[in-house]
Structure formats: structure tokens, C-alpha cells
């Protein structure tokens, strides 16, 4: 690409809904500039399977959080989230992305 782009990290967190507010609070504490929460419908893991329709009680369904951060912040953000997620049901992954200039991450 000849467009000027900047390398960033994309953190994707899949976590049980009751812990969401604590994950977001952890992100807020790291200076991250933004994140987006995305719904999930169903899934399977070591703890068995779940579907959204089973969980009007919120206790057993998952949500996904996408957070694009500067590489300088990535480690801090990952550690902060991992501290919360490791005690809960959830997973965390990180990948490389590039963004356009003038965008704020």
C-alpha cells in the first residue's frame, strides 16, 4: 500500500457478560483511547457450550471486546485485561493491524 499507514495492535477479548464492566474498567485504567463491544450468539469451550437464548440471566453468555491500541500501550492493556479475564471465563488474543493517519488510538 502506498497510503501512509501506522502499525497498531488489535486486542480481542471474549469474556462472560457479568465480567464485562470490569474488563472495560481495566481498559479505562490503561489510557486506551477506545474500544467496541460486540455481541456473541453461542459458543463452546472447555466449560461446555452456551447459546444466547439460554441466558436471559446474563450469567452464562459471552461478549466480545475489540480494542485497537498503539504498540506502546498494548502490553499494559493486555496485562490489565488478563488480570481480570484469567479469573473469569474468557479468552484474549492479539493481532497486528494498520490504521490511517489522524486516527486516534
Amino acid at each position, binding site marked *: 500500500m502506498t497510503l501512509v499507514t501506522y502499525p497498531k495492535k488489535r486486542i480481542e477479548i471474549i469474556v462472560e457478560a457479568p465480567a464485562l464492566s470490569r474488563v472495560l474498567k481495566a481498559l479505562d485504567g490503561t489510557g486506551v483511547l477506545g474500544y467496541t463491544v460486540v455481541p456473541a450468539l453461542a459458543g463452546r469451550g472447555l466449560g461446555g457450550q452456551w447459546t444466547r437464548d439460554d441466558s*436471559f*440471566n446474563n450469567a452464562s453468555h459471552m461478549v466480545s471486546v475489540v480494542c485497537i491500541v498503539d504498540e506502546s500501550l498494548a502490553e499494559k492493556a493486555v496485562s490489565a485485561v488478563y488480570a481480570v479475564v484469567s479469573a473469569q471465563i474468557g479468552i484474549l488474543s492479539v493481532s497486528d493491524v494498520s490504521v490511517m493517519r489522524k486516527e486516534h488510538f
Partner: protein
Amino acid sequence: MISLFDLALSNLLSPVVLFFALGVAAALAKSELAIPEAVAKTLALYLMMSIGFKGGVEVSKSGLDQHLLLAILGGVALSAMLPVIGFSALRATSKLSVANAAAVAAHYGSISIVTFVAATQALQIVGLPYEGYLIAVAAAMETPAIMVALYLANRGGKTSERKDGLWREVALNSSVVMLLGSFAIGCISGEAGLKPVAPFLVDLFRGVLCLFLLDMGLIAGRGLRQGFRTLSVPVIAFAIYMPLISAGCAALLSLALGMSPGGTALFITLAASASYIAVPAAMRIALPEAQPSIYLTLSLAITFPFNLTIGIPLYLWLAEAIQ
């Protein structure tokens, strides 16, 4: 007095229970039938709104007296005591860890509003009135069991750090706010306020309850299919005998509370019911090491169906018997 058998039969053949059974059957047969989550949540809110508002209107007619206070105190005490019994029973008879036993005990000390709602329907069929203030009693009985269970779980040592905000979340959970808010609005606006909203809040109630219980049946059925095999016999047995113990305690206590037979039946039902909304969410934060597949299966897939089909007529009969 109404015969227990007749009560049980008319309860089992009511559309409300039959739709629940349809849900269980559909889930066991792996049908893809499902009530969308957004709608199921709204149906639950509607039930709280309706039962709360009607309770408030009753209170606006009869006024509040010391009986309310007495019933709330009784309810809170019961809700704090039952987890101790439950926890001891589980630790004595099963291999559940401390955290798992405490989490399960919290569910059985707390209450299920939908079970309460189903019991009010059973009362209506046999024509028994009840005290409107029981709505407030129900709300008061949601939380104490959680505190006691966390104390039981953490006696050993390290207490969880992440509990900041937990009490606000528990105290202001959707059901409590909707129930108590509608109750207060019912108190304020009274019979005159009820009239224009009655076609929505009163007339539709039974039909909406059928649809909601269909969904509960689907969830209970899927829970049975998945969760059942992981549970040992003593743990499964707990989900049947614990409601009966709770009912017994509540019946004894109710003798001191001076409620009508209908009110007594509801009080017993509250004690015998197990939470599956507020408490599970709180446990995921306060006791994340406890396994949701254990407490949700017990509460939703065993105790709820048991109460709905057999428990409620039994508690109603018990309430009449001890008068």
C-alpha cells in the same frame, strides 16, 4: 379445605404448566424452537411490572401496617439462615468444593420471582387473596443470602478483591428495580391509576406468563440435557429436599407473622424457590471459581420445574393446613 390431589391436578393441567412442559419437551427433542433473548427479557420485565403494580394497588387500598415490617424482617432472617442449612447439607452429603457449595446455597436462600408469580396464579385459581406487600418482602429476600454465602465461602481466608460495585449491582438489578418501582407506582396511583393500564398489565398477564414459561421450559430442558450427567446423586437430591426444608422453616415462621392463607402460601413459596437471575450474575463476580453449570442446572432445571409442578400445590395445601 381443598384436597392436595385436586390442587396438584388442576395445577398440572393449567395452560401455564402445560406450556412449560411443552418447552421442556421441545428442548429434550432438540427442536430449534426459541424465544428471542430480547423478547424473553421483556416478558420478564413485564411480569415484574404487572405483579409489582398490582401489589402496590392492593397496598394503596389496605394501607401499610406493622405486618409489612414484620414480614420483611422474617423474610430477611429466613433468607440469611437458609444458606447456612444448605451449605452444611451440601458439604456433609456431597463432594462439592467450598466455593461450589456456598454458591449453590446462595441460590436457595434467595428467591425466584417467576415461581412467586406462578404461585399467585395458583392462588387465583382457587380464589385465595394475598397481601400486596409480599412484593416488598420478595424484593427484600433477594440479597441477604448472597452476603451469607460469601461469608461462608471466605471464612477460610483470602477474600476476593473484585467485589467493588457488586452490592450496587445486586441491589439495583433489573428485577428488583422493576418490581419495587412498579410497586411504588401502584401504591401512588392506586385503583384509579390501574384502570387505564389494566388491559395491558392485568388482562394479558396469564397469556404472557404462558409464553414466558414456554421459554423457561426450553431453558430448563436444555439445562437438563447438558448439565444433568455432570451432577452426582446427592447434589441432585439437594435440589428437591432443600426446597422442602425451606418450605418447612417458612411455614413455622409464618405462624408468627399473621398473614392470610394466601399470603402464607406465597411466603412459603418464596422460601422454597431458588434464584436463577440475580444470584448467578453475582456469583460470577464474587465467586468466579464456583461452576455455573452446577448452580444453574440445580436451580433452573431441577428446582424450578419441581416447584412449578409439585411444590406450589404442596405449599398452598401446607399454608391452609397450618392455619
